[in-house]
């Protein structure tokens, strides 16, 4: 479903991604771990098409097409979802209105009938209930004044209503209390399916107890230096990143 080959990307002439290779097959959950500043969020932004990031080499194939050819909104409508590490606040725009707009624009793109206000409310209520979220969240301005945890839950809510093919979650678990963490994990698990892939960026092995990944990758200095199964996460928790960095340094360039 997603094939990233030798991906290189820069910000303001500094190379951040230095040849990333990654393949996600339908139904798989991949986790990416790695030290601060190693380029995890950059990878998410490049996949989503943020224009501050210049792709200088490599390819990204998504569902058989060249993802790099598409604008961010086109990618989104093809089913790429990015849960932001720092969700953006948009004052004055009600959360429910935003959800309605994005759901309907997605439905339109898929050739489905747009939902009216009642149908939308029904859908939202349903999703809110499964995510253990309060309906009052809908009335508030989008992310405006939301607590850190509320913002993250709101990202999951958006993912739930948009039903993406590929969901990239950038540290959606950071700053969550243990209950919220379970909610997020439940949200993801309930959406796991044969035709959907997940790329989960996290610093904590803890999340991976709830969302069990098929593959764990370690990104260091813009490259995936190690991949393994869920046990790799445990090992990282135990030993930190230094041993991998050392290994890497020992390898011939």
């Amino acid at each position, binding site marked *: 479903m997603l094939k990233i080959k030798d991906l290189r990307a820069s910000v303001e002439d500094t190379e951040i991604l230095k040849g990333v290779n990654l393949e996600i097959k339908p139904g798989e959950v991949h986790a990416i771990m790695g030290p601060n500043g190693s380029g995890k969020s950059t990878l998410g932004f490049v996949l989503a098409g943020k*224009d*501050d990031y210049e792709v200088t080499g490599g390819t990204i194939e998504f569902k058989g097409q060249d993802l790099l050819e598409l604008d961010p*909104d086109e990618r*989104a409508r093809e089913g790429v979802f990015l849960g932001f590490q720092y*969700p953006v606040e*948009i*004052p*004055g*725009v009600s959360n429910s209105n935003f959800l309605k707009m994005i759901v309907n624009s*997605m439905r339109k793109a898929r050739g489905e009938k747009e939902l009216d206000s009642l149908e939308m409310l029904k859908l939202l209520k349903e999703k809110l209930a499964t995510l253990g979220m309060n309906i009052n969240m809908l009335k508030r301005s989008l992310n405006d004044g939301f607590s850190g945890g509320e913002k993250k839950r709101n990202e999951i809510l958006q993912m739930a209503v948009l039903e993406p093919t590929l969901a990239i979650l950038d540290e959606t678990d950071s700053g969550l209390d243990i209950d919220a963490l379970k909610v997020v994990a439940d949200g993801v698990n309930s959406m796991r399916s044969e035709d959907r892939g997940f790329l989960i960026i996290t610093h904590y092995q803890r999340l991976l107890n709830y969302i069990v990944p098929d593959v764990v990758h370690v990104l260091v200095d813009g490259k995936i230096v190690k991949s393994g199964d869920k046990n790799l996460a445990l090992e990282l928790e135990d030993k930190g990143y230094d041993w991998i960095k050392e290994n890497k340094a020992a390898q011939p360039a």
Partner: protein
Amino acid sequence: MSDSMQTLEKHTKSEYKYGWTSDIEMDTIPKGLSEDVVRMISAKKNEPQWLLDWRLEAFRIWSEMKEPDWAKLNINPIDYQDIIYFAAPKKQPKLNSLDEADPELLRTFERLGIPLNEQKVLAGVAVDAVIDSVSVTTTFKEKLSELGIIFCSFSEAVQEHPELVKEYIGSVVPRNDNYFAALNSAVFSDGSFCYIPKGVHCPMELSTYFRINAANTGQFERTLIVAEDDSYVSYLEGCTAPMRDENQLHAAVVEIFAKDRAFVKYSTVQNWYPGDKDGKGGVYNFVTKRGLCDGYRSRISWTQVETGSAITWKYPSCVLKGNESIGEFYSIAVTNNHQQADTGTKMTHLGKNTKSTIISKGISAGRSQNSYRGLVKIAKKAENARNFSECDSLLMGDRCGAHTFPYIEIENQSGKVEHEATTSKIGADQMFYCTQRGLSDEDAINLIVNGYCKEVFNELPMEFAVEAQKLLEISLEGSVG
């Protein structure tokens, strides 16, 4: 330039959608301004002697005044002798229903997206449609008159209620107030008159659509609203003008008089022709709008959405004379391409415990310049006066400008004035967040801009808010991104 900036630019370069002229036969007088022209206007309208005298005095005052110095505005000189001061549709049908109206006229309204049809009537809006200078259709008048509400064209009021007109005309905006008020007082053609008797709560929104139609016709509307004790009225004014090459002058005067506990809400949506992408043509909009909160606990609220005109110079103001009276100003001013807007308000606190609120949202795109100019004045006797001002500017692109000029004059130390100002660029992060969710650049911009304007939209009557929102989208089309 980033991609999102380019999209912004692209979106703001759209063409004016309301540009056309309708072929309605016009009755005009020759170009130019003189005492004779003033007499001619007055005669054509069959006015009483006192009003002619009033106009002539205004003309004398105007002749002695100097055109104001255009602070932030970059303006082509206006040739006052090259303007036609009176134009009225020749066919002046007395209408029982809209079926009898000139079909051309009705089409004009339809193209504006403001169907003056049964729907609107069913929606409970009384519409007094003004094409150029003379009021053409009036609906709902009967229903209003049962309540003793007078809502008619200014000329009609002069004929039918001369005592009211005589008492209040110029009582809020005197003839010598400023250059354009003096000009308007001398040559005003028509406008609306509204009188709400004691204790009457006007059950519907009163609305007027002004339109500049004849080429080279200056528009000199005059509106007078009088609200007696304990009355309430919500008045809507909307404007669109067809595309023209020459600049057209618009110098209107609006006066509101509010007595004890009266509440007058005045909402404007203005989208006169702003000129083309290169800054050619467009309406010069120099308007004097003022409300006098004369009575105890009276309240006047101005809400405006300004998207049109090449040049806007407009400061709806409140004079808070009555104790505990309240003045409010909610404004969205959008400028694009080469538009220039200098708008704001004046809140003059005279009475005790008076309160004023100013919320101004400026949006600049293209190469436009958008200035907020506001004066809050607290006079010596205004004990415990309060003002809160919030002036926000949103920039789209790198070539536009936003300027804020808050003037504060406090003569009574018990007064409290709070001023907040922000300037922001439409955020690339906000844009990306929205597009990542599948919204087009255009939808994303509209969403963000609407959110930014929310506080002001909230003040508009529902129906009008929707229209205003559409207008905002149209005027930013091609610019955002």
